[in-house]
């Protein structure tokens, strides 16, 4: 957060961030529960097979191996979710710090997985062409980029492809999400856009959306860079 911000600005950012954090933790715990439920059923399957083997039905080693592989896949999935949640939790460690755009992208892609899946959409990511860093509250920036993705999801309806791009120009990063525009935008889309615009401003950036009408919606967040890369000064 910028040092020029007042304590009430900080309060507002923290309140928004807390709500965002709660929502994300709730989402991720659903994912964790899903994995546990799968593990539970696969364990039940092994239990059923073992019980059947006691009644002279021989155990099928290939089938057991298949179930073990399925269990391992879910354990791997669980590890990734827990790592992501841990990272999210540590987003609040530093309220104003320097973080890389690649790191921001990794965090956002993790958080976007569930809403993208539930929206039957896909997310194509075009990472920045070189390293660059932002300065501020990393949780707030995650919230803003995810908000842009959710705005594009709400706008386009189910089953579409979104594109997340990072463009570096003259000491700024433009993080854009493109997807289908809504034919008739509903109140939810308008509310999301207003909230996102306010958040971008609070984070010291700005939001642009274009076009208002037409077939493609482009939501762009622009933030000043902290450091373009090791050899390039901020302009």
């Amino acid at each position: 957060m910028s040092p020029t911000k007042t304590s009430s600005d900080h309060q507002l950012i923290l309140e928004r961030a807390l709500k965002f954090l709660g929502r994300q933790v709730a989402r991720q715990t659903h994912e964790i529960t899903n994995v546990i439920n799968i593990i539970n059923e696969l364990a039940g399957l092994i239990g059923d097979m073992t019980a059947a083997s006691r009644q002279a039905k021989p155990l099928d080693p290939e089938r057991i191996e298949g179930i073990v592989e399925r269990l391992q896949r879910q354990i791997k999935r669980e590890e990734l979710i827990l790592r992501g949640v841990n990272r999210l939790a540590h987003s609040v460690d530093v309220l104003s710090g320097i973080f890389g755009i690649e790191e921001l992208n990794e965090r956002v892609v993790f958080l976007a997985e569930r809403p993208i899946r539930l929206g039957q959409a896909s997310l194509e990511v075009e990472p920045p062409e070189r390293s660059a860093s932002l300065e501020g509250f990393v949780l707030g920036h995650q919230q803003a980029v995810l908000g842009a993705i959710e705005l594009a999801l709400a706008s386009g309806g189910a089953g579409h492809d979104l594109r997340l791009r990072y463009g570096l120009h003259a000491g700024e990063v433009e993080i854009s999400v493109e997807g289908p525009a809504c034919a008739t935008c509903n109140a939810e889309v308008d509310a999301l856009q207003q909230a996102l615009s306010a958040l971008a401003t609070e984070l010291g950036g700005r939001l642009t959306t274009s076009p208002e009408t037409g077939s493609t919606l482009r939501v762009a967040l622009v933030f000043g860079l902290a450091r373009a890369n090791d050899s390039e000064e901020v302009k």
Partner: protein
Amino acid sequence: MADRVLLVDDEVEFVDALAERMRARGLTADTANDGQQAIARASQARYDAVILDLAMPGMDGLQTLQRLRADNPNLQIILLTGQGTVQTAVEATKLGAMDFLEKPADIDELLGKIRQARATRLALDMQKSEQEISDLLLRRGW
């Protein structure tokens, strides 16, 4: 005739494992991974029960429940979810769900509910047939 059940959940591994366990217990278990698929399957076969998840891509569990019940009011639907709240359970019951279970559900409890669903469905089908015969006889002046 074996109990026939449709399992609907967007977690493919979950629904596949549960279907395998039910088949091992002698049930006929079909699967669907979203609401649209569930509606299509239910229009092609006669199910004793539908086990339905709540949070799914596209059409969610409650919307799917409404559509399934609109197509077949006698269809017995059990919601099986990891995201249950009292409010959702009440809403689901109002929309005609037979029951609402939290994941992970005990397989024997689930099988008990399916047997109950089959009995209810058979009774309702019988009632419907009797009503149809009665209406027919009435129309013919008997």
